[in-house]
């Protein structure tokens, strides 16, 4: 007799029922988490052994869409279940689990389901935590933090060593070279020509330093103090070393996970964009307009709330081609870059990071077009500039008071809190 049947893919196993909801056969997963995951990812090896016994049925229904697709390719008459049937399975899942002999009673079924949920969720968490883009986000963030650390310790080191040898401060700009000199020479008397040239200081400058060390205005330094400064210098050298490693690391990881985004944006800006988006997958589903202002949320929401002009670029501003462009071209270039980045991210995610050099080519063409077409400031730009300049002048506090008279100490017109710096209008 020809019958219908339904294949239920449940958390704990696969069950095949007839129309009267009686069990025909069932298979309990040995490892539910692995098997369930495999089925949801389109791997049907668990079900293959049933295929021959399924051929005798007329219509087959299943609650797994992917399974329907796969088995239909094998020539079975299989359909996706009707919605009421699907709801029935969720609603009476415990009964079905018992019916398929996966659980002995309801509380056993609940416990198994809970155990499954914890294991399955944990595996999901584990798999996602392994993704390289999450690591590149951590890398780029620690790179930024390292920069801050190097700056802070570096300036302290300069300041402190400056008590002993103030003249070197403006002769050596590079913080790492400065640290190396302290590390190797210690007291200023020990700074010699060879040492400096070995560190890559050019000869003329090296001579100036040695010269300065002989008639320095700095005071003597105790060994104790010098030791601590040396430790600081060590710190600077170590962190600079780590920074180098990180830069290379970000570069190579970006090359594997997002080569197209990297091509368009450079590794560090690309990594920052991914960091802001949350993951490369999230970036891939973002519209270009969002990518364009990623990192300028504050300005965007201000624009939405007050009707001020919206930001032209967020993190994209760090792209050399954008921040080196004249102001009136930046918005246009940012828009073009963002549009290509949106495509590049999608290629990186959905086409397994296959290189598509034409993206960069067309982008460069477009940028050239913008640079030629808008060589001169656009009328709109000039108008906007004029308006914001006027607004600035009106809102400057000095103009609201009568002209200054004397303004001596304690006078009504004295400036309070020191000289007011002209606040730079910063559009991010």
């Amino acid at each position: 007799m020809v019958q219908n049947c339904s294949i239920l893919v449940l958390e704990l196993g696969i069950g095949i029922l007839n129309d009267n909801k009686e069990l025909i056969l069932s298979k309990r997963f040995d490892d539910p988490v692995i098997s369930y995951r495999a089925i949801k990812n389109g791997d049907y090896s668990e079900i293959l052994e049933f295929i021959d016994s399924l051929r005798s049925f007329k219509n087959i229904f299943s609650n797994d869409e992917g399974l329907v697709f796969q088995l239909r390719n094998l020539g079975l008459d299989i359909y996706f279940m009707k919605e009421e049937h699907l709801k029935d399975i969720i609603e009476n899942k415990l009964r079905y689990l018992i019916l398929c002999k996966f659980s002995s009673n309801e509380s056993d079924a609940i416990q198994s389901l809970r155990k499954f949920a914890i294991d399955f969720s944990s595996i999901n968490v584990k798999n996602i935590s392994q993704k390289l883009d999450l690591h590149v986000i951590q890398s780029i963030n620690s790179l930024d933090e390292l920069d801050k650390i190097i700056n802070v310790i570096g300036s302290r080191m300069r300041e402190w060593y400056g008590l002993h040898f103030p003249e070197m401060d403006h002769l050596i700009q590079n913080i790492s070279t400065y640290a190396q000199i302290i590390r190797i020479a210690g007291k200023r008397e020990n700074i010699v020509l060879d040492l400096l040239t070995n560190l890559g200081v050019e000869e003329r400058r090296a001579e100036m330093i040695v010269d300065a060390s002989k008639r320095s205005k700095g005071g003597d330094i105790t060994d104790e103090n010098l030791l601590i400064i040396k430790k600081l210098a060590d710190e600077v050298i170590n962190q600079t070393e780590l920074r180098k490693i990180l830069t290379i690391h970000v570069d190579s990881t970006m090359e594997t996970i997002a080569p197209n985004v990297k091509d368009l944006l450079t590794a560090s800006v690309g990594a920052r964009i991914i960091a802001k988006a949350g993951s490369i997958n999230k970036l891939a589903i973002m519209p270009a307009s969002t990518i364009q202002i990623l990192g300028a949320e504050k300005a965007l929401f201000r624009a939405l709330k007050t009707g001020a002009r919206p930001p032209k670029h967020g993190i994209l501003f760090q792209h050399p081609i954008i921040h080196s462009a004249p102001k009136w071209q930046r918005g246009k270039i940012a828009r073009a870059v963002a549009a290509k980045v949106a495509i590049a991210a999608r290629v990186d995610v959905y086409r397994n990071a296959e290189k598509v050099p034409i993206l960069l080519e067309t982008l460069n063409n477009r940028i050239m077009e913008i640079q030629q077409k808008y060589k001169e400031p656009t009328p709109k730009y000039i108008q906007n500039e004029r308006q914001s300049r006027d607004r600035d002048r009106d809102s400057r506090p000095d103009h609201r008071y009568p002209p200054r008279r004397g303004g001596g100490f304690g006078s009504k017109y004295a400036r309070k809190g020191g000289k007011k710096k002209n606040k730079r209008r910063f559009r991010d």
Partner: protein
Amino acid sequence: MSEKTFAYSNSNDFSPDLFIKWITVDGERNLATLNLVPGDSVYGEKLVKIDKDEYRLWDPFRSKLAGSIKKGLKNIPLKIGSKVLYLGASTGTTVSHISDIVGNNGLVFAVESSVRVGRELIENVASKRSNIVPIIEDARKPNSYFSIFGRVNLLYCDIAQQDQTDIAIENCRMFLEDGGTMLLVIKTRSIDVTKDPKKVIEEEAQRLKDNGFKIHQILTLEPFDKDHGLIYCTFENR
């Protein structure tokens, strides 16, 4: 579920057979729930012993449900043995208190899409409390939830998405029993930053009415949470 079962007012205590209490600590009235896992503090909250029972203080600034109870939620639609679907479980602060209230015979399905906080949900809360089923999935795809079964008595939704109301309604259709309760936290800033928060809450309430919900109470969560509201409604016709 009749309203009377849970009715309380801010001045009276809850009915004694609930696992939730007002406790006065240092002259301040605090909400507290009976600790399901004695000795375990989930997020650094204070543990208070009363006779033999250990209670966990419930901070209204940390949990919007506690905030809304403090603000006078008419009725707390939870009792021992309730089944709850919780969307936006996050690290499980509120989930842990709900798990306390429903007790070992109850069940909390905790849905969270973010892996980062999901990890903490599993580690700190779900693996220690036998009535929590963690579901790391996107609340937009209720079809892909695993380990969920039957219908729930309460659906609590606290997700920061622009279409949070639609997501909640979709989940109610699939998993909430007829006449079941939904508590929907409205994050007005996620829906529209430019609009007046009050207006946003009204609009979302109207949308719920259009979809067969009966609104019982609308609260704002000031001062516990800025620009947040909570709608207490029941699912009347499918």
